[in-house]
C-alpha cells in the first residue's frame, strides 16, 4: 500500500500549478493526508480540516496540502479561512496572479463582490500586457458564470495589448452564451478574416446556439455588414448565405450565392448548388430562379445540363402548387402557364444535351407530361416507346413502361395495357412501381368484368398495407363483395365498371349517358348509391357544380344506410365551399356530424367547419 500511496502523492504534487518536490513529505504525512482525504470523502470536513491544517503548518510548501485545505474550507463555506490561507500562500509566492484570481473567486462566493472585483483587477495589473493574465481571470470568471464581466475583461485585454486578433473564439463563445449572437458573429468574422478555412468550425459553433429565429436574424444582420465591409471575403459570403438558409430566407440567400458565383467566376456551379438546396427546402420559386440564371448566364458551363433539368422540374412543381391546368372544364386550351414552360425546358434539354446521362429521364418526363397534362396521347406514346426501346433496364424505362400501360388503358387498348403491366411486374416483382402495376392489373380485370381475377389481385395487395395503393385495393375489394348479382353475369357491376373505364378515358359525356341508363334500369341495385356518387363526380368534372351538389345530396336521401352517406355530404360541402357558399357548406358539414357521428371523416369535417368559421384553434 505504502509505495502506491507515495506514487499517488507524487502524482498529486505534480498536479499543482507550481509543483514542489516531495522531498519534504515524510511517510507519516502521507498517511495523515490519506486519512484526511478519507474524511473529506466521507463528508467529515471538520476532522479533515484539522488534519490538513496540521499538515500545511508542517509543510507549507507542499502544494497539495494547500489545495486540499482550501477545498475543505470551501466545502464547509468557511470562506474567510480559505481567503486567509490564500493570502498566506500568496505572500510566499513570487508569481501571485493565480492566487489573486483564486482569492477573487472566494471573495465572490463569500458575497463580497466589490472585493472580488478588486482582486481580479489586481491580478490583471500584475502583467497587463500578457494575454495569459486575461485568460486566467477569464477562466476564474467563467467558473462563477460571470459571463458579462468575462467579456469585459477579454475586451479590455484586446484594447490594452492593442491586438484585435486575441481571444476571438473565447469572446464569440461568451457572446453566444449571453445571447448576443450578433456580437458572436462579429468575432467569428474576425476569425474568418484571418483564416477562411475556419468556416466549418464557425458554422458548427454558431449552429449550436442559433436556435431561435431572432438569433438567426441577429447573425444575418452582422454577417451582412461583414460582407459589405469586405465584399471579397468568400467565407463571409458563405457564412451569410448559410445563415439566410437557416432563417429560411431563400430569396436573400439567392442574392448571396449569385454574388459568390460571379465573384469567383464559378460559371454557375455555386448557384447550381444553391438551387439544389432551395429545391430540397421546397423553395421552388427560388430554385427555379437559380436554375434559370445558371442557364442564362452560363449556357456553356458544366452545371448547365443539370440546371436545365432542375429548372423544368421546378416549373412542374410550381404549376402543381398553383393548381394550373392546360385545359379548362370545357376542354378549351387555357393560357400559357408553367406546364408549357416545363415542357419546353425539357425539350430544350433534349436538343442541347443529347448525350447527357439524364436524357432518358427527361424524355420520360416529357412523355408523362404529354399524357397527364397536355392530353396528347399520340405524342406521349411516341416518346415513352422511345425511352423503353432505347434505354432498357433503366429506371426511366420502367417508369415509361408503366406510363405506356396507363396510356393504353386510356386509349382502350386493354390487352396492350395488360402486357405492359404484366411485363413490368415480372421484371420488378417488388417496390412501389410493382405495386402500382399490380393495382392496374386488378383494375383492368375489373373493367373487363373479370371480377374473380380482380379480387385475387386485390387480395394480394391488401396484405401489404404500407403501400400507397393498398387503400384503393381494399375499396375495390369491398365493391366486388357487395355489388355482385342479381344475375349470374353481374350485369350492373359489369356496366358500372365500363362506366368507370369511360371516366378514366375522360369520355365524361358517354360515361354520364351510360350511367343514367344504368340508374334507370337498376335503380334498386346495391350499386345505386355508387352510381349516384359517380354521377355527381362526372357532373362536377363537366362543370355542372349545382347538379353535382344535388346529386351528392341524393345519396343520403335515397340511401340512408349507404356507405357513401357521409362522404357524399363531405363532397357536397367541399363543392359548396369552393363555390363560395360558406354558410351552406358549414351547414352541410354539420349534417355529417349529426347524421353520421361515427364516420371516420369526422376529424376532417370538424377541421373544415373550423376553417370555414375562421376559428383560431
Amino acid at each position, binding site marked *: 500500500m505504502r509505495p502506491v500511496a507515495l506514487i499517488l502523492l507524487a502524482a498529486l504534487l505534480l498536479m499543482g500549478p507550481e509543483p514542489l518536490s516531495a522531498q519534504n513529505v515524510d511517510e507519516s504525512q502521507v498517511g495523515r493526508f490519506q486519512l484526511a482525504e478519507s474524511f473529506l470523502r466521507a463528508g467529515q470536513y471538520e476532522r479533515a480540516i484539522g488534519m490538513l491544517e496540521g499538515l500545511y503548518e508542517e509543510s507549507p510548501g507542499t502544494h497539495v496540502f494547500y489545495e486540499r485545505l482550501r477545498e475543505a474550507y470551501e466545502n464547509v463555506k468557511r470562506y474567510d479561512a480559505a481567503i486567509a490561507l490564500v493570502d498566506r500562500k500568496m505572500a510566499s509566492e513570487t508569481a501571485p496572479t493565480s492566487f489573486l484570481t483564486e482569492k477573487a473567486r472566494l471573495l465572490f462566493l463569500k458575497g463580497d463582490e466589490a472585493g472580488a472585483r478588486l482582486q481580479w483587477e489586481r491580478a490583471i495589473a500584475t502583467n497587463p500586457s500578457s494575454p495569459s493574465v486575461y485568460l486566467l481571470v477569464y477562466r476564474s470568471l467563467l467558473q462563477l458564470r460571470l459571463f458579462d464581466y468575462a467579456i469585459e475583461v477579454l475586451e479590455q485585454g484586446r484594447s490594452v495589448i492593442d491586438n484585435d486578433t486575441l481571444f476571438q473564439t473565447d469572446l464569440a463563445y461568451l457572446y453566444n452564451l449571453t445571447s448576443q449572437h450578433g456580437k458572436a458573429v462579429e468575432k467569428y468574422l474576425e476569425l474568418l478574416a484571418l483564416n477562411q478555412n475556419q468556416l466549418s468550425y464557425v458554422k458548427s459553433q454558431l449552429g449550436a446556439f442559433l436556435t431561435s429565429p431572432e438569433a438567426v436574424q441577429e447573425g444575418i444582420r452582422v454577417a451582412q455588414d461583414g460582407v459589405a465591409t469586405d465584399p471579397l471575403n468568400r467565407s463571409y459570403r458563405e457564412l451569410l448565405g448559410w445563415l439566410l438558409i437557416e432563417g429560411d430566407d431563400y430569396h436573400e440567400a439567392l442574392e448571396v450565392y449569385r454574388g459568390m458565383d460571379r465573384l469567383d467566376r464559378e460559371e454557375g456551379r455555386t448557384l447550381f448548388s444553391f438551387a439544389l438546396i432551395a429545391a430540397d427546402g421546397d423553395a421552388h420559386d427560388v430554385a427555379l430562379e437559380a436554375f434559370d440564371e445558371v442557364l442564362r448566364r452560363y449556357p456553356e458551363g458544366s452545371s448547365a445540363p443539370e440546371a436545365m433539368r432542375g429548372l423544368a422540374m421546378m416549373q412542374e412543381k410550381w404549376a402543381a402548387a398553383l393548381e394550373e391546368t392546360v385545359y379548362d372544364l370545357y376542354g378549351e386550351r387555357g393560357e400559357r402557364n408553367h406546364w408549357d414552360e416545363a415542357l419546353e425546358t425539357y425539350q430544350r434539354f433534349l436538343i442541347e444535351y443529347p448525350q447527357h446521362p439524364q436524357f432518358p429521364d427527361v424524355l420520360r418526363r416529357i412523355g408523362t407530361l404529354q399524357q397527364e397534362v397536355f392530353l396528347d396521347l399520340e405524342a406521349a406514346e411516341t416518346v415513352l416507346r422511345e425511352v423503353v426501346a432505347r434505354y432498357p433496364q433503366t429506371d426511366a424505362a420502367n417508369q415509361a413502361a408503366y406510363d405506356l400501360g396507363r396510356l393504353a388503358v386510356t386509349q382502350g387498348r386493354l390487352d396492350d395495357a395488360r402486357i405492359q403491366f404484366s411485363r413490368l411486374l415480372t421484371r420488378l416483382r417488388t417496390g412501389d412501381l410493382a405495386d402500382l402495376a399490380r393495382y392496374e392489373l386488378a383494375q383492368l380485370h375489373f373493367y373487363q368484368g373479370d371480377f374473380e381475377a380482380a379480387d385475387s389481385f386485390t387480395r394480394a395487395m391488401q396484405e401489404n398495407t404500407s403501400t400507397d395503393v393498398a387503400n384503393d385495393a381494399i375499396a375495390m375489394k369491398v365493391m366486388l363483395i357487395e355489388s355482385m348479382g342479381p344475375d349470374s353475369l353481374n350485369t350492373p357491376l359489369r356496366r358500372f365498371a365500363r362506366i368507370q373505364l369511360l371516366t378514366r378515358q375522360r369520355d365524361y359525356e358517354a360515361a354520364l349517358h351510360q350511367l343514367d341508363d344504368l340508374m334507370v334500369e337498376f335503380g334498386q341495385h346495391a350499386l345505386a348509391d355508387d352510381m349516384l356518387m359517380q354521377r355527381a363526380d362526372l357532373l362536377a368534372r363537366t362543370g355542372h357544380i349545382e347538379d353535382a351538389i344535388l346529386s351528392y345530396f341524393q345519396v343520403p336521401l335515397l340511401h340512408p344506410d349507404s356507405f357513401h352517406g357521409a362522404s357524399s355530404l363531405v363532397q357536397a360541402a367541399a363543392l359548396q365551399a369552393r363555390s363560395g357558399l360558406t354558410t351552406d357548406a358549414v351547414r352541410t358539414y354539420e349534417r355529417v356530424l349529426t347524421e353520421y357521428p361515427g364516420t371516420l371523416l*369526422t376529424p376532417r369535417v370538424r377541421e373544415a367547419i373550423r376553417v370555414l368559421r375562421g376559428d383560431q384553434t
Partner: protein
Amino acid sequence: MITRYIIASVLLVLSTQRTAGAQDILVPMDDVQADHLKAYGVTFWALERKVDVDWLLNYRGGSFLMAAEPEIEAELRVRGVSYEVLGGARTASILSEVESDAANTSVVRLEKPPRIAVYAPEQTLPWDDAVLLALTYAEVPYEMIYDDEVLEGALDEYDWLHLHHEDFTGQFGKFFSYRATPWYIEQQRQAEMTARRHGFRKVSELKLAVVSTIKEYVGGGGFLFAMCSGTDTFDLALAAQQTDIVPSEYDGDPVDPDALSRLDFSQTFAFHEFRPVFNAREYEFSDIDSGPPPQPLRNPAVDYFTLFEFSAKYDQVPTMLTQNHVSTVKGFVGQTTNFRKHLIKPNVVILAEAPGRNEVRYLHGSYGEGTYTFYGGHDPEDYQHFVGEEPTDLSLHKHSPGYRLILNNILFPAAKKKKQKT
C-alpha cells in the same frame, strides 16, 4: 374545512332551478363518451357563455348537465363530444336519483370559468407539459406566466395556477448530463439573468421568492395544481429557505454542511421529514419521490394506481378531483413519480395511490383560503417520456383517465361560489 368550497345551498335547490318542460343536455362521462377530454373543454366553453353547468358527481363517470341550446349542441358536435338531450321529466328524474341518499352521488353547480395560468418559461424546452397538452387539446384557454410575472404580482389575475416539470430548487432540473446542450445553456442563462434582474445572486434564491409568492397566493384563496417535479421541488424550496441544498455544479458553491438540520418543514405544504439528494449527478431531488416502480412492475402493462372513493355528498372536493370512468388508472413515470407515504403530512388528503407500495400518486390539501393538488408523473399517456421526444398526440387518447384527473382540477375552481381572499 372541505365543505367551505361547496355551495351547499345551491345543491339543495338545483332541481327547482331547471325549468320543468325545458330540455337539457347531458354530457355523459362514462364509457359511452366519444371524447372525455374535449367534454371538459365544452363545459368550460359553456361556462364562458354564462351557461350554468351541473356536475353530477359519480353519476355516469361524473357527467355534466346543462340547458339545451342549439349553439351548445352544435359545439358539442363540432368538438366530437357525445351528449344526450333530455326532456324535463328525465332531467328531474336524474337529479332526484343523484341527490338520493341511497347513492354516493351529488350535484355541484359550476358557475364561472376559472382564469387559468400556466407557469412555464417562454423558451421551448425539449419535453412536453401534460397540462398544456390537456388544456390545448380540450380547447381550454390559459395564459403563460413565469418568474417575472409571479414576482410582479400577476397571480392576483388568476384563479388557478399550474406547475409542471419545474425545478424550484435552482438546480435546473438536475439535467447535468445535458449541460452542454443549447436548450440547457439557454435555460440556465435565462434563469440567472432573471435572478440578477430581481436582485438575487443565485437562481435558488429567485425560485424561493417565486414559491413564497405562490404560497401566499394559495393562502389567499388560489388553487394550485402541480405535476411531476413541480410538486416535490416546491416543498423542497420552502423547506430549504434557511440553508443551501444546491451542489456547486449548479450554483458554484457547495451544499451547506448543516443543510439537513436546517430544513424547516413547518414551511412546506404536503411533505415533511424528507432528505434532499445532494449528488449533482443523480437525477433525483429528494427521497420524497419513490422513483419509478421496481423493475418487475416497471411495465406499462402492469403498473397502475387506484383512485380513492369519497363520499360525494360530504367530501365533494376530493370527489370532484377523482371523477373518472375508471377507478384504476395506468401508471406513468416522471422525474417525480410517486410520493413516499410516510413523508406526507397527516392533514393531506390522499386521492390515489399505487396499491401495495406505500406510494401516493395524487394528493390534495389546503393552505389558508386556498388549496393545492399534487399529481406525480410526467405524461399520463407516455409511460416514460424522454427528453427530446415528440409530445403525445391526445387525439389518440381521447378517453385518457390520467388526463381526466388533470382536467377535473380546472373545473373544480368553477364550483366555488366566489374567491375568498385574506
